[in-house]
């Protein structure tokens, strides 16, 4: 399969004091497939995606997105160019309604599409908000205050916000963390639907979810990439088994 590279990192590193959280990583993300990054706690997964979406600056190395170096762009600029990040721990606007939460995201993407100085009409925003909320199954909750939603629904709201941002590359950071089993199945279905139109990069602890969804898996340990491959290759990889099971 000749996949087209959407995003790649080259010699990307990030140090925190004496600790190298991400060490000289060359990571490739190819278009039109769900890719996952797995690894034990502290492997550097979240730091790597933080570097990709610009929440932390790299110590060295570069990030190429659609052929352009984006390492120097602000996080806001990267979102505008289509790299959208969904938080591990939900970071919604808990005092605002679900409608406002999604509208904030929709408004930005509509503005980017329409050009900088045009005001977006509320009717268009509204349409987008209702669509995004119903895609994740939160229709009818529009005017509920986001902070009063159950945790699982807050996670879905995060996803709705990301969808409204019109992503090209959607980074889901541990989307199933803290969810009940039934909610996890629901989310797997949702991510699969989303992935038909959006490139999905999944950071996940839950192996069941990873092997259910991902078409290609990158394993990280100690800040570097340990191995990469299809889910079945990874499942049968001896080093990965040692890493996870300690045998």
């Amino acid at each position, binding site marked *: 399969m000749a996949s087209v590279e959407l995003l790649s990192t080259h010699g990307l590193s990030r140090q925190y004091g004496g600790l190298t959280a991400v060490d000289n990583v060359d990571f490739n993300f190819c278009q039109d497939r769900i890719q996952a990054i797995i690894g034990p706690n502290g492997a550097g997964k979240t730091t790597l995606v933080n570097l990709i979406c610009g929440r932390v600056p790299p110590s060295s190395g570069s990030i190429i997105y659609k052929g352009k170096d984006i390492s120097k762009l602000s*996080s*806001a*600029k990267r*979102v505008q160019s289509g790299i959208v990040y969904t938080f591990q721990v939900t970071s919604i606007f*808990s005092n*605002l309604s679900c409608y406002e939460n999604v509208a*904030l995201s929709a408004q930005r993407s509509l*503005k980017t599409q329409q050009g900088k100085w045009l005001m977006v009409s509320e009717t268009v925003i509204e349409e987008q908000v209702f669509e995004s909320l119903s895609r994740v199954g939160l229709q009818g909750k529009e005017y509920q205050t986001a902070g009063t939603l159950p945790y699982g629904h807050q996670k879905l709201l995060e996803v709705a916000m990301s969808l409204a*941002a019109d992503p090209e590359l959607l980074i889901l950071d541990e989307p199933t963390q803290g969810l009940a089993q039934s909610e996890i199945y629901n989310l797997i279905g949702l991510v699969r639907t989303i992935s038909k139109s959006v490139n999905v990069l999944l950071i996940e602890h839950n192996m069941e979810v990873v092997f259910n969804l991902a078409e290609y898996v990158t394993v990280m340990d100690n800040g570097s990439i340990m191995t990469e491959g299809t889910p079945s290759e990874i499942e049968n990889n001896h080093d990965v088994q040692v890493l996870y099971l300690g045998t």
Partner: protein
Amino acid sequence: MRRKSLKYALFMQGGVLLLLFLLQFFLPAYHHSSFSKIMILASYAIGYNFLLGYTGLMSLGHAMFFASGMYSAGLSIFYFGFTPLEGMIFGTLFTLTVSLIFGLFALRTKAVSFLIVTLMFGQTFYLAILYYNEFTYGQDGFSLTDYLGTLSILGKEYLYSDPAIRYNFALILLASYLLITTLIVLSPVGRILIAIRENEPRTQLLGYNVFSYKLFALTFSGTLAGISGAMHALLYSYIGTTFAEIHHSISPLLWTLLGGAGTIIGPLLGTGIMFYLIDFISGITSNYLLVVGVVLVLTIIWFPLGIMGTIRQKWLKWLP
């Protein structure tokens, strides 16, 4: 929801403004003059609230903006012979420039550091007015009475300090502040400012350039304060350093907190209540600042949302 908010809010504000308009024909002279003053000061507080209540930035240097509007309008009329209208325009543009430049520096800091930077700039501005007293007349201030001329309306000449002129100019100022802030707050831009207040890092990660929105909010808020200051100079013909003092920066904070930060009409209510409370207390003791302090503390403990904020939480969800 927003459309409903806008419709209801405009009706309510329209009602309040109509009431204020009609009251001028019934109020005794003393209260007539108090109301004029309250409306000017409330406009100042509405501008302050735009920054505190809707963007989440607390400033302790707003007297600098009020005074820079007041002094630039006043001094330009006094020295260059500007007409009152030219003075107002100059005052507006001058304050706009001051707040924009100030914002570029101050907004590099956050939270408490921002508060302290605003405080320091405010004090520097105040001391600069005192220092250049040959030009600004320092602590004594100066009067514009002989420089303003008269205002001709429908063939009749009025002084700017005429009570009816004062009242109605203050009312027009208040009305336009209420309208413009309501429209901005309920627009997509207002939504972003509120998002910054609620969760700044998340707003950045939704793809917004948070700095430029904060800069807009600060410049807009500062300019509103400056226009209030310039208007005050015209209607009261007096320019003095009391308006640049720290306590004139704390006042709009108090009025806003009491009335309800993040509500459009709150600052008007807060200003009115504090004005009459101080008026009443001054008759009993000269230490009215003590009362101001106590009200501030009690408000924060029992009414952290302020009067209108509490009303919104309990009954009027649509209140912007």
